[in-house]
């Protein structure tokens, strides 16, 4: 097990390096620069600004410099917000996105697992069809439709929540629901499928022959195997939650990293883009490793290899 973890960890380092390199060259080779939009400044001033940030040096030299900085954990300055470093911006914005992501994940897990469990126990009844149809709806209505709809219904018409902002605890509700809905739906379907497959196995019949109640069968026997597909999904789910937050943060005015990332890309804020990409990628890779380790641990056959 320990060897598995170290091996995976060592694998991620070249991966992150490749990501950094690809991102770097993609950005520099793309048309447009960070100061093109500033129509007020003269070409000389622009040249001096570029020199200030080292943008006039040969490309490969800039690449090496950046790599060196990255190894020291220095993500560089931001062009759009002069005076602030990327590290600072991420330190401010990422916890917001993280909180939103967690809350959305909680929504997804609670609703999704509950729906999946009920549906699997009462297969082909109303308890199955209704939650699964709702799940289908959750999959088919995109976040940027659901968001405005929820705002319209609960914030504007019913006035239960604010339409935007991230100041009070109750500001978390609508964004978390919007972001979590798709994943709740996906998890519900996965959980139902996984549980059904387990519930059809012989050892469940053995448990029933022992006189076990339905609750015991579900929680002690079925769940352990049944949620494996849900856990497998968590890796890509978190990746999706992070990226999905771009839209949700825009709609609800949440000051998270996602919004900064997209604007930075538009503004050719090179260091900001690199910083965000590496941060996200690193986070997702780490989480996937955790999920894979968890999966191996949960399957007794694999645990002792």
């Amino acid at each position, binding site marked *: 097990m320990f060897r598995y973890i170290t091996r995976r960890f060592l694998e991620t380092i070249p*991966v992150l390096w490749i990501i950094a390199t690809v991102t770097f060259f993609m950005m520099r080779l793309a048309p447009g620069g960070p100061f093109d939009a500033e129509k007020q400044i003269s070409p000389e001033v622009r040249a001096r600004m570029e020199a200030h940030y080292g943008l006039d040096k040969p490309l490969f030299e800039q690449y090496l410099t950046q790599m060196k900085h990255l190894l020291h954990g220095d993500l560089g300055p931001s062009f759009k917000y002069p005076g602030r470093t990327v590290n600072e911006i991420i330190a401010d914005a990422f916890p917001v996105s993280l909180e939103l992501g967690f809350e959305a994940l909680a929504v997804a897990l609670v609703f999704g697992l509950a729906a999946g469990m009920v549906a699997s126990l009462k297969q082909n009844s109303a308890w199955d069809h209704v939650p699964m149809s709702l799940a289908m709806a959750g999959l*088919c209505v*995109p976040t940027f*439709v659901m968001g*405005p709809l929820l705002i319209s219904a609960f914030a504007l018409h019913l006035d239960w929540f604010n339409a935007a902002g991230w100041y009070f605890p109750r500001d978390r509700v609508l964004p978390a629901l919007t972001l979590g809905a798709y994943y709740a739906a996906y998890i519900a379907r996965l959980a139902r499928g996984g549980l059904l497959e387990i519930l059809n196995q012989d050892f469940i019949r053995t448990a029933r022959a022992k006189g076990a109640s339905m609750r015991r069968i579900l929680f002690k026997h079925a769940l352990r195997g049944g949620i494996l597909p849900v856990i497998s999904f968590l890796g890509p789910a978190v990746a999706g939650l992070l*990226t999905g937050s771009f*839209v949700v943060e825009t709609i609800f005015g949440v000051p998270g990293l996602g919004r900064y990332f997209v604007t930075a*890309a538009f503004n050719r804020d090179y260091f900001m883009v690199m910083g965000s990409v590496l941060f*996200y990628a690193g986070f997702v*890779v780490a989480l996937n490793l955790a999920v894979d380790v968890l999966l191996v641990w949960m399957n007794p056959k694999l645990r002792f290899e």
Partner: protein
Amino acid sequence: MIDTSSMAKTERGASFWQDAWHRLWKNKLAIFGLAVVTILAVLSFASPLICRYIIGFSYDQQNLALGPVAPNHTHWLGTDPLGRDLLARLLYGGRVSLMVGLCATVVSLTIGVIYGAIAGFIGGKLDMFMMRAVDILYALPFTIFVILLMVFFGQNIILLFVAIGAVQWLTMARIVRGQVMAVKRQEFVEAAHALGLRRTRIIFRHIVPNLLGPIIVYATLTVPEVILLESFLSFLGLGVQPPHSSWGVLIKEGAEVMEEYPWLLMYPGVMMALTLFSLNFLGDGLRDALDVRGSKD
């Protein structure tokens, strides 16, 4: 002994595909999905004709004097702030969205099937290497790269197809590889081998038909994901560019004026949700019908 030959009726065997079609036909939701998708596809691809002869407006025909109006007799679904007819834009947008969906799915299918088939068929070290690559790639937030690609390299619709398709191929590769390996191991392949059939014959007559099932299912399920991704990009301003429109663009425009002109968000939203619903139901139905593992009665 009693002669019972007259009692037994000769049973007509059904081929795998006939059996699957029969099962699909019984699944009302899936057939509903198929019907809706077909109708939508026909309407969308015939949209130029429909726009010209039935509706009377084109998707980019502005009427600034008119401005945004609610649905009425002239404009059946209303107009947007530039006076453009919503129904026309919806149909045209559908064409674009469905096309993106189809093309990107074809891209991901091609890459995924070739990759997965090679890995599965050759097996061994190559397979291990290829699958590790897939595992690593799977972990990356591809969407971020697509965003970067679209931001930096401009709004080329071909690039859009390729970029979106490139996000989805991983799952297809995994499935195809799994299926190839499973089929390879099955006894009937050994039996064919024992009968002396040549390798190519084995591949085409035996393995490929078994691949078609999962490929069809996951292709059908990829299309809605692709459409969602495209509309996500459009919402960020990265997807389809004006004057073209897709459902994503329409939804974005509708969301901006949601309070004043709700129909501009509602109709595109419903249309897209309906399409995605239908594709998902169809995909589920196909999965149940074609997946032999699933049928247990």
